[in-house]
């Protein structure tokens, strides 16, 4: 317990990242996988900001801003792909989407 140190935040970040990773590995719904990827990105943001807080630096927050911006672009394209998939293939199950492989 004791005082609030950077390790608290790093552990939280690690736990969130792993939960997100488990989601990506175990779920098959493309939208859930997308949400889990966002969760992992957020966990990384959290540890970046925590390191910045420990080292008295704003660079961590700057990186986090960039990650959020990229995540927004990723969301736009990713969701458009999911929409197109659901329209053409009639599924959002990652096990059924293999048009590029077969």
């Amino acid at each position, binding site marked *: 317990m004791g005082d609030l140190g950077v390790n608290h935040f790093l552990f939280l970040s690690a736990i969130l990242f792993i939960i997100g990773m488990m989601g990506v590995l175990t779920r098959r719904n493309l939208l859930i996988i997308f949400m889990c990827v966002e969760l992992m990105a957020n966990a990384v943001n959290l540890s970046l900001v925590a390191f910045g807080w420990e080292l008295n630096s704003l660079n961590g927050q700057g990186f986090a801003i960039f990650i959020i911006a990229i995540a927004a672009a990723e969301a736009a394209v990713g969701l458009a792909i999911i929409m197109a998939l659901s329209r*053409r293939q009639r599924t959002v199950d990652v096990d059924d989407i293999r048009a590029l492989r077969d």
Partner: protein
Amino acid sequence: MPWDVLIFYLIATICTLSAIGVVAVNNPVHSGVFLVLCFLNIAAIFVMLGAEFLAVVQVIVYTGAILVLVLFVLMLVDPDDLPEFHTGRPVQRYVGLLLGALLLLEIGAVILNRTVTGTSGTDTAASIAAVGGNTQALGRTLYTDYLLAFEVVSLVLTVGVIGAIVLALPERLGAASPVTRRGTISLAHPKDTDAALSPGPAGETPMPARPAATVAQPGLATAGRQLIMTKDPDAYTTPGSRRS
């Protein structure tokens, strides 16, 4: 225990539980709601770390835009298209859990044994307060040290927008798809784009193929009236074009 530690544990618990909820819950909309809760709590932790601007950006961009879009798509996707939760490959699930546990142990060991090698920065609480606060200080960092990266990110965003528009265009609506579909919900159809479309596929509620001329001459085809209303409402609501 000091107050801040107590508050941290409260937030961290909600955060972790809702993250587990995202992964473990069957209903995708519930997953989305849990993710919103998780992101709001992460924003609260950003506030604890003195990153107020980032916290607000997190709420506005992540919960206010990205997750709304996810829920939006979830509601547009036919529920029949979503995979069942308890089918598929159980091996995948066990391996995923095992890998996750292993990685957690590794990261935990790393965090506990780490040492700080970097030198401490100059952005102390006093220097941030001197320029007016977190927002101003972060703005200075972004527009001086990371100017090029900032420009590149704006370019990426523009490309992302264009890509999303191209992908979401309904130009080949059902054309290459062997499956038959009911008509999709049209929320905001761009004007005058439908004449170029091939007629929709035959489905449970067959869409009548209509000649392109009916678009320009409102009220001509009463059989396809319903469809034309949704596809080209301007023909009906522009003053002067209405038949009295």
